[in-house]
């Protein structure tokens, strides 16, 4: 059988037998009335739909749900085993407790059901009164007096072709370390020694860094000797004997 079946409400309660949204109490009622054959009720599906749903039940509600499901399982077991057992004639105190709770819950919820019916009578969906629906922002908007020429000027500004966006900031500057090394070698060949500061006067930070790397490269190759008398001061680059032979 399908669990999701709409059944007439025996207690005139507008409930649906949708087990994830629907009432377990009504299911219990229908089972007890034998309108649903408990032997055909897939209890495993029922438990999965009820407890594995997205609803986060709080502990008291979860306890009541588990109690209801356990009662169903017990009733189904009794039915499957057979009702001729003399022990079944004795009322089950737990099942009676569940039924008492069911009755108490139905009675406690009745005022809200009646309030829902009252709300239906007050629902303005069938009424004919109409309200203003203009957003306040629109109501606050005021329009001053303008000359037609102002509109023409505004349109003229819109018709001017916009300037082509500059992409200069997207161009990456490329520095060739080989060229700087060659330039440094030439300077050493001509003067014998050069000042780092003089070489980098007016240069940007990238040129500063690359020139320093060029100096270190010449020093590594033994073509130049670096000397910095004062910390953070100027660096004197002197040509070495190896540099003279090169």
């Amino acid at each position, binding site marked *: 059988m399908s669990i999701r079946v709409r059944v007439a409400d025996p207690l005139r309660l507008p409930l649906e037998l949708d087990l994830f949204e629907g009432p377990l109490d009504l299911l219990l009622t229908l089972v007890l009335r034998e309108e649903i054959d408990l032997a055909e009720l897939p209890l495993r599906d029922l438990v999965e739909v009820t407890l594995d749903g997205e609803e986060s039940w709080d502990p008291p509600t979860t306890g009541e749900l588990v109690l209801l499901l356990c009662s169903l399982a017990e009733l189904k077991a009794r039915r499957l085993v057979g009702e001729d057992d003399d022990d079944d004639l004795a009322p089950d105190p737990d099942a009676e407790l569940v039924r008492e709770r069911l009755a108490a819950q139905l*009675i406690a919820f*009745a005022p809200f059901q009646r*309030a829902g019916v009252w709300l239906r009578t007050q629902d303005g969906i069938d009424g*004919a009164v109409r*309200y203003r629906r203009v957003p306040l922002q629109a109501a606050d908007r005021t329009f001053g007096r303008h000359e037609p020429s102002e509109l023409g000027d505004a349109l003229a500004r819109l018709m001017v072709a916009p300037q082509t966006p500059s992409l200069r900031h997207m161009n990456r500057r490329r520095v060739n370390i080989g060229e700087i090394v060659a330039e440094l070698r030439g300077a050493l060949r001509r003067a014998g020694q050069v000042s780092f500061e003089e070489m980098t006067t007016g240069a940007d930070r990238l040129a500063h860094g690359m020139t320093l790397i060029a100096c270190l490269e010449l020093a590594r190759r033994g073509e130049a000797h670096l000397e910095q008398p004062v910390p953070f001061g100027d660096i004197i680059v002197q040509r070495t004997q190896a540099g003279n032979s090169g």
Partner: protein
Amino acid sequence: MTETQLLRAVEALVFLSPEPLSLVRLCELTEAAPGPVQRALAELAARHDASSGVELAEIAGGWVLRTQADLGAVCDRLRARPPEERLSPAALETLAVIAYLEPISRPEVARVRGVSAEATVASLLERGMIEEAGRASDGVAMRYRTTPAFQERFGLKGPHDLPSIAQFELSGAEAEAVRQRLRDAGHLPDEVV
């Protein structure tokens, strides 16, 4: 500001405002005391009687001018009425639980109703009938309350303009009738006499 000027100002404000204007807000806008503003509202209500096309209504915590009910059809020729869906019995019951017990969390609603309230609460949220009202200091569940749109739709003057829940409670005889129906259906044991 003379009484006539105040009356005209109040009329202009409630006409212009798309949402109900509370007495406090009207006092702020007109820079008048509550007494004269209330008298102006009373005069305005009398002026817009059944012979007028609009009426002054106290709704959702404020005052608003709305069209008379018998003019709904002609008004709809001017403006297509936004489609509104009816609320199901389950939604109305859930709305009643929230309206009477607000602020209330979804698990608490589910406990009162005895069934899951997730889809119903989500639907009411989507329709603007309820809104989030923060979390309880000792809990993590979001609580909900009804909105001015709910009060407007159901013609309530404010969030507490509801009949006493006591008048909806089952009388002793009615509660006994429920229990008797359960007994007749075999759900409750017969009382021992």
